[in-house]
């Protein structure tokens, strides 16, 4: 008798997610950002693909609305790259949720992504995924403080003995 969780009817969950994301348009209007229903549906699809690729499942509306509300005031996001950035952030989020072994909450991970995106990455999604989040996940798994960086250590050593 099949009780496979893959059988779970995702249509209700998707509907819930779409409603939640569309509501975000009111919030993002102040920043000149908005998503059409078609764009929202594509985002929900991306979420489904990301969940599937990372072996995760989600029962509620998900995190897309949280990502939107956190990132909408970023100086590196405009109408031109808004949708594309969201697609990539969603994929990144679920990938690093696994990489951090679920040790960090959704809110904290999104906050870290935002700080790094606006800060050291200066709007580069490649740097965010390939450097900041990777280091962050490694530190979490290894039990180091999240800001720990081996590169910084080498730099410090170099400064102290003056050889570099």
């Amino acid at each position, binding site marked *: *008798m*099949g*009780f496979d*969780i893959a*059988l*779970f*009817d995702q249509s209700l969950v998707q509907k819930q997610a779409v409603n939640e994301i569309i509501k975000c348009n009111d919030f993002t209007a102040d920043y000149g950002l908005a998503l059409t229903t078609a764009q929202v549906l594509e985002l929900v699809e991306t979420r489904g693909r990301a*969940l599937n690729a990372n*072996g*995760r*499942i*989600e*029962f*509620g*509306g*998900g*995190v897309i609305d949280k990502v939107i509300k956190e990132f909408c005031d970023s100086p590196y996001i405009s109408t031109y790259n808004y949708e594309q950035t969201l697609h990539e952030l969603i994929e990144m989020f*679920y990938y690093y*949720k*696994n990489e951090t072994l*679920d040790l960090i*909450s*959704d809110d904290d991970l999104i906050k870290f992504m935002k700080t790094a995106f606006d800060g050291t990455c200066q709007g580069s999604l490649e740097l965010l995924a390939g450097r900041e989040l990777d280091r962050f996940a490694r530190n979490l798994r290894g039990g180091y403080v999240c800001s720990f960086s081996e590169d910084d250590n080498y730099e410090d050593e170099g400064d102290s003995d003056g050889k570099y």
Partner: protein
Amino acid sequence: MENIEKISVINKEKLNGEFYLQSLLEEALGLRLITDADIERIQYECLELLANRVERYNGDHSSSIRAEAAQSIMTSNLYTIGISLKSYSSADDAVKALQETKAAELYANGRKRIDTMLKTAKALHSKVLNNMVDTGNVFYNETVAGGIKGFFKIYDPDFEAHEIHITADYPLCNPIKSLAGIEFIQKYLESILYENAFCRNFSSDDIHHLLCGHDEAYQELLLNIYEPVLTAAIGCVVAGEDVRRLNLTETSLLFLNSLLKGKSKDQIYTVFLKAFDELKSIFPITGNLQEQYIKTSLRMITSKVIVAMELQTLDKLFLIASYPENKPKLYFSFGDKMDNKSYREIVEEIMQCRHLSDKITIIKEHIRSLADMEDILLDAELSAHEVLAVLRELDQPEIAALSKKYPFKSDLEAIDLKEQERILSKCLYDFIASLPEEQQAGLSKAIDMLDISF
């Protein structure tokens, strides 16, 4: 009239105790007691329940969960619903309940039942701890005391109700089939309680000697204690021996062999049941359930007897007590060591020698006690080939004494040994293996009997 059971359309035997809900639905669907629509509704309700449980599992922490974690929670939910369904008097009633009651409600009932079972199991465990058999068997002591305590510490009825987490290494005489989680532990403890109650009719010394009849190192073996005790007790009753001392002899084995020879399984079981009736008049067998447990054990022992009769190995089943403390002992002294200065000089001389023959000549000339010989073998940096050559110069009692002190160990066991100790132990093993079989047997007997002093 007490045992009248309601006739059920669903055959109880076909239901799986571990995956009760799934097997019940399959059977009910096969017998057309429920429709496909019912199944779909139940599946959907179970998924809704899963969504609620996952929300509780994650808290505010996360909105998603790894698929394997979700699957495990689902298995736990289905197990808990199964526990609730098992409380109905018949499988048909359980199906009816599935049709009429929401999955969440069944889950809540099951969860309450698990709490009750957990309390019962804890009470059973403390009873078991008060009635432990006094034995040195590590598996018995570790599992029954430590292992079960560990289970109570880590059991999570909310999200992993179907898991037991521990391995429950100590085997039962009547193995538990298709039960999981708290149900398994409760049944395991009940079985241990019955087994303990029976074994406590005999003195721990008699049980020790009986198990020594199986193997003198039984303390380290993964074996059930109650089974040989029950078998010996039944054997004693049938052969007319002293059952209180579990005193089976070679003669009683011959008698048992002649009595049981040619009998069918049912006939042997009847003989054992009769013996058990007699046993009940000697020892208090409390309660119907313990009696039932012993009868089930006897049925299993009967099957083993049939096989043992065919293989002529009845002595492996009906054990004859063995008394290792009464075996003759050989005492061997390693002798006195020479003074340190002379010893240092000899070791240096040996290490400076180029040829093996010179090394052996020095050893023969200066070494007078086995204690010094042992030190030389360890300190003189001899290669395996050289150690073997020195061993060839020794007498058999000396080889036996060294082998007793340096038994052969596997790579894993020898991990704590020094390199030279490892070489010596391996060389002794190789040396003995190279001897004729007769000498090997003599040496092995001598090693067993040796009591070495330094």
